[in-house]
């Protein structure tokens, strides 16, 4: 018989499964574990795309539609393709004066990142943020929850390269 390896659907990584097991222990009712499980799926799949919802449904043995109804009710979840890493670049007065707009250009030319957009490889998403309280060390940006200050083009690239 000819072998035709079936394409494996993406499922949870071992790390995510460990987190899911923890959650399951906390909530004896599977439906109650749904919202925390959706956060994990979001981390794992980038956003709540149909595969992510299906994986949650399968893991919690809930109907797929129930998972989708619940997920779409909440706007706190990512319902659209988003970059894996959220870059929030400050362009308020201090940072602007210290060269934030140059950095903005760098992001565009090197990473294809326009404000509000996502890089073509899905690695970064850019939002032009308001002041993040680092005016003394500008230009500053947040990548996910990490603060990076005193940026120039070289440091920007260095920092971003540490996020995959």
């Amino acid at each position, binding site marked *: *018989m000819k072998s*035709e390896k*079936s394409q494996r659907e993406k499922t949870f990584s071992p790390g995510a499964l460990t987190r899911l097991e923890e959650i399951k222990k906390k909530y004896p009712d599977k439906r109650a574990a749904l919202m925390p499980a959706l956060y994990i799926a979001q981390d794992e799949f980038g956003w709540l795309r149909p595969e992510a*919802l299906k994986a949650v449904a399968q893991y919690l043995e809930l*109907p797929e*539609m*129930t998972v*989708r*109804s619940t997920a779409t*009710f909440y706007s706190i979840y990512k319902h659209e393709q988003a970059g894996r890493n959220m870059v929030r670049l400050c362009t308020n007065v201090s940072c602007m004066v210290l060269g934030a707009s140059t950095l903005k250009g760098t992001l565009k030319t090197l990473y294809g990142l326009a404000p509000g957009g996502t890089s073509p490889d899905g690695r970064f998403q850019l939002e032009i943020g308001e002041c993040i309280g680092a005016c003394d060390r500008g230009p500053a940006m947040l990548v996910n929850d990490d603060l990076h200050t005193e940026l120039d083009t070289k440091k920007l690239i260095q920092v971003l390269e540490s996020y995959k």
Partner: protein
Amino acid sequence: MINISINGKKIGLEGPATVLEAARRHGIDIPTLCNHPALELWGGCRMCVVEIEKMPRLQTSCTVMAADGMTVYTETPRVVAARKSVLEFLLINHPLQCPTCDKAGVCKLQDLTVKYGAVAGRFEEGKRTFPESVDDPLIVRNMERCIMCTRCVRMCDNVQGAFAIGVVNKGTRSHVEPFSGGRYNCEYCGNCLNVCPVGAIMSRLHRYTYRPWQMDKTVKTICSFCGVGCTQLLEVRSGAIQKVSPVFGEGVNKGLLCGRGIFGYGYVGSPERLKTPLIRKNGVLEPAEWDEALALAERKMLEIKNLHGGRAIAGVAGGRCTNEENYVFQKLLRAGFGSNNIDSVARLGLMHAQNLLEDIFGQGAAANLISGIPRSDAVITVACDPTQTNPVMGLQVRAAARAGKKVLTVGHAHGLRRHRTHSLPAHIGTEGMALAGLLSELLKIKKLPGENPEFEAAIKNFELPRLEEVETYTGVSAAMLSGAASALKDVSSSSIIAGRELAAHRDARRNLMLLAAIGYILNSRFFLISEHPNEQGLIDMGCAPDTLPGARPIALQTFRERYEEAWGVKLDPEPGLSLMEMFEQAGDTVRAMYIMGENPAFNLPGRKMVKSALGKLDFLVVQDIFMSETAAMADVVFPSLAWSEKEGTYTNLEKRIQKLEKAIEKNPEKKVFLMEDWQILMEIGKRAGLNMPYTASSDIIDELARLSPLHAGLGYGDLAETGMMWPYKGKPLRMGGRIPALPVSRAEAPSKEQALAPVLVLDKPLFHSGTLSRHAGPLLDIMAEAEAKLSPETGSVLEVTDGAMISISTAEGEMALKVKFEKGLPVGAIFAGNNFGEAGALGLFGYELEPESKTPILRFANLEIKLETGKL
């Protein structure tokens, strides 16, 4: 007694009821949108608000229970103002498309707007917009019209148990859709569109074709697909069925239908229907006059009778034909042609299963009300998936699960995977062995009830296998068995649903004895899966080689004489040939066959043998509505009428006789002249000199009621709304208690290779039914081609992918099928249905006969599965 007052009217209530129910029962109408009698209380739309004294705010009457001393007003100015504002809010977004909406005329929102008066909208922003979804072949969703009553979602989740649709997003963006957002991946029960109060979810089958008030007539009749016998409403215009819908609260289905029932009617209007009799001339079937064809059929049959004797003629009765037609059929065969070689599809398992149960518990052992299923403490399904074969019965099992009852599935039951509480996933064909394990566990923890000492003695003498043996053979572990048994420990009543494969089995008697023993211990009602609408009727009408109408043995002289006297002929006391034997002996002792509404060349195992048998006959007469594989081989073909075109009765699996109503007059101006099956048989019978003075099917019921002790005194008029339950009106023979001391056989455990070898399983898909549904367009839209369903695990074992074309071959034949992955199917099993011409899976199965009943047991040998090259 709860005494309340509504609008000054004093009302006394016997039991608990909501204010809404109390009002409606006493003729006071309160408008509702989200409330539906089939669904649980909701209170979402606020249309039903009423004023209740001493309660400061308006109350939703659909959720407030009536309490003693309550004083309710349903149409005060305050209430009317509230309802008007509810309507105003709904009309902010509901588009005013009534002139083009199919629902206009039967739309609740429209009616209420007319009643309470339209208001000038004060909302200046635009209406919400959604593109109409026509991604699905059968169901169209227009979410701009949706009023968010969630009736459809509640129906899907809580009644149908399919969880296929849900509310997506929130606030003004909320709407209802399936997971995919487009095409449905569901059971196509159609119940969502039946409960939609507006035009948001609608059927595409009859879209834009008519207005509800333009119907010529609506006719209540019985569905023709399976043995549940659901009541359905046919809406007819210009001689064609426009729409099929259930009637809420009525019939055994109480307002639910399945995909076949609601979308499967299309075959009736198929252009491929036979329109004239056909006679084979020079090897070709050619249209002929009725007279010529009838005379030829009669002359040739009698010639063969005179030449070779009556036993050279055999007949197959029809599971889709009415009781009356089957009665006349066996009368023609027995009295006209002198043959007891009469059999039917009931031979494929139902008859044997029923006979074995009746041996122990007496006639009517499986005559129980489907509505009792959710009321019993536990439901056990054995070797069947009622949600596929008898979908509306399957819903009762799901209802039981929802009510917190125990649901145990023995063997494969995919449709109950979300609803069962316990499962004994025995390998296919080993369900009986799993029952043996369950019984031995039950005997450890439960006392025998002491009602039937003889049967209890037999149960004690069963040689039950050790649990390890059960595990090796069935794959069901001791822990599963003891878990299931302890769950059933405190059950005081239960329902058991069994598939025909239990009786189409080498150990049929063992299987049914075990089933009976478990049922006896658990105080069970039995239900037997019945795949044809009148399979039970076939048994009752004596369409069997050894019984006469009334299902009593022809060998009994007193009983036989009764019929001999009435029919004016001597009957052969010897039982005739069973279904498969007729074909095995064709060309030899059997020279001619008469087949009514059946397609043995396609619907029986051993297809090669059956086809060659039909070819060996001297003479073959077929009555059918389509040119089936069997009809194509006939010498004379008579066109007959479909279920919606005739009167008569079906007997469902509860043994309830129900009346069909004629919805379509097939011969309005005698343009085409078609006869009902019994009329064709009668014309031949009369020519053969039989006394068949029937002018309507009610005359046949009258004759039956005079002769069959089972139907004694039954009149056509008795079969009003709810039909007539067993024992009809007559007296059943209580001939139970025949309990042979039967050692329960220990089947040998299969070798490891055998246990892992792929097995071929005859699938009974929800969306198709034998060969009729091939002609029903909408069902083809849901499932257009034959599929080989298997689990992804099986797929990786066989190294095939979802959607691949594979060729399956056995000793019997070979066919190409498209692989469809379905999670949760048993590993190693390949499910293929017998529904499509080129790829009817029965063509892969041979059979062996169960020695006692001659029930064919499906067998396959030399199974090979290959990837079809070039078709990927």
